[in-house]
């Protein structure tokens, strides 16, 4: 490298690197950083980004489908699906009509089927008025409150509304302990 180059005849600067080489190093470093950043940011966006979609509402049925104080299990195709989800996007919720409140509004209780413990599907037992989880024996009362077993809380509530005489719920994502379905309402 340091062999004298007869043609150029360039001299080393005394006591330092040639400024051109130092500059080139700096340039290489900066360009490398820029290239890395340009490469990394879109990749991160691809791997960790979230697709934002407007809230989607799923019809559960006519109001008359839900007798007072009875729990109905409704299965539906979750619109949060991918086109090639197949049967995997089928989702169940437990709907209970609780009558009208003082203001005369219909009151519903819509509970996600996923156990608040580790997400297994709870089943509704009308005879005893309990939800039971097959995995570790979590049990909930009909109002979704925890009755016994390992779940740290009651069942997750879905967001619902009544529109044109129909009950609709907001398409539920997979609920977890720190990412419930009613985040916006609870806070």
């Amino acid at each position, binding site marked *: 490298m340091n062999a004298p180059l007869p043609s150029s005849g360039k001299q080393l600067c005394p006591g330092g690197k040639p400024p051109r080489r130092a500059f080139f190093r700096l340039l290489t470093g900066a360009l490398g950083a820029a290239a890395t950043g340009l490469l990394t940011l879109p990749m991160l966006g691809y*791997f*960790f980004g*979230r*697709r934002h979609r407007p809230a989607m509402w799923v019809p559960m049925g006519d109001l008359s489908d839900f007798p007072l104080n009875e729990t109905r299990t409704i*299965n539906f195709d*979750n619109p*949060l*699906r*991918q086109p*090639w*989800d*197949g*049967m*995997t*996007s*089928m*989702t*169940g919720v437990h709907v209970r009509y609780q009558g009208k409140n003082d203001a005369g509004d219909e009151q519903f209780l819509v509970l996600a*089927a*996923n156990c608040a*413990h*580790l*997400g*297994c*599907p709870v*089943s509704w*037992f009308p*005879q*005893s*008025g*309990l939800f*039971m*989880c*097959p*995995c*570790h*024996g979590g*049990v909930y*009362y009909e109002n979704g409150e*925890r*009755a*016994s*077993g*390992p779940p*740290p809380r009651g069942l997750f509530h879905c967001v619902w509304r009544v529109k044109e005489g129909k009950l609709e719920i907001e398409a539920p*994502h*997979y609920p*977890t*302990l*720190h*990412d419930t379905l009613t985040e916006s309402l609870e806070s």
Partner: protein
Amino acid sequence: MYQLLRKLAHWIDARAGVSATLWPMMRHPVPRSIDGPMGWWYVFGSASMTFLLIQILTGIGLSMVYVPAADQAYESLLYLDYQQPWGWFLRSLHYYAGSGMVVMLLVHMTQVFLQGSYKYPRELTWVVGVLLLACTMGMFFTGQILRWDTDAYWGLAVGASMAGRVPVLGPEIVHTLLGGDIIGASSLSRFFALHVFIIPGALLTFLGIHLWLVLRCGISAPPKPGEIVDPKTYDATYHEELKRGVPFFGDALLKDIFFSALAVTIVVVIAAVVGPKGPTEPPDPTLAGANPRPEWPFLWLFGLLSLSPPAIETFIMLVFPVLVLGALFFVPFVSNRGERAPSRRPAAVLLVIVIYTTLGVLTYEGVQAPWSPVMDAWSGDPVPVNLVEGRTPLELQGAAVFQFKNCRNCHALEGIGGRRGPDLTTIGASLTRDQLITQISNGTPGGGNMPAYGKQMSPAEMEATVAFLISLRPDGQLPAGAVEDAPVEGTTPQPVELTE
């Protein structure tokens, strides 16, 4: 022709330096005693590698038919099982060779630990080995997800819920893991990428490093009691030993080949006889009766988790596995010198015994899973006839209520039914009427294992149930508690204030 090929080989070799590099590696000397019977201890690592080779071959084969898309994966598995020539065998072999790989890794690690082979200068070899174990477990978990049936779906749900417990970052991790808002096509594709590209890439890299380290540090000599490892003198002694060594490419390799061939034969026979695992029900989340079980290498964790109090659960899910891995990493740094022979290291031997016993017991519990209710016991398992024979109408009614209120899902009668709560076949002999009412009404205090049934049944139903439970006692035995307090058979006691 032969001459031409020879020339070609030489031509390539002269440029690529294959024999110059590989030949010394193959001929590298190993301690002489490995040539003897002690050498049989050294066959497990290569057996794991042989299984890995099978996994690569069968994996590539399966990937040519399997469709990693949520709407077709299940169908393609059935196609593999029933239509594709030998598809069932490849699936089966992929499962059992994978299991064999885990077993061989564990045996290999245990041997290395017991014989102190991880000590100086092979600490790093051990650490990379632990990474290999972690990768293999990762392969097992992701592989189970690719078997896209109802167990896979709910296994993924449980895994996501565990990850979701991570403070602050939980929701982001779940989203990244599932590749979207719900468990579905993106989740399967992510696990496919993990199982086929990401983890195998890491695994093969670590394997390369592991092998390089094995070559560089040499194979440890079988331990002799009293032969102390001292980093200052070890290298010189070891080199002396190698001068008297035998080439690896000889009987040592022969033992490896023999054992691997044996292991492969066994696994092939098992795969052919037992057949492929699953798929079970299709991955329809609305199907009732889901009862996901983790694959066998994780059953111990399932058991540990289910047996631990809910208060420390999150710790066991998130921190404990890290601690276990950390502890394994740390092994060579706790002691990298001193005795190697198991006979001089009773603590190490004891540790291995304790660990395997614990794993065994927890795995057994995980298989039994007494904490899982039997969801259809209330309707599927009738009350044994001899428990209702000669009972009063009230008691008979109680038996009906007992079934109808799903008590049976957690409580067995004569061993049949759920085992989450105690078997109630003789409960009348141990709990008094009052105790029974309190227990049923309030459940386990503080919301433990039994829900409070106080509001779930009417006083009349409670009355009947208690009467039935009191009648459950061995022949000739009086009800528990004061005799005059107990309801006499055949009478209908007045309903008392029952609840709250």
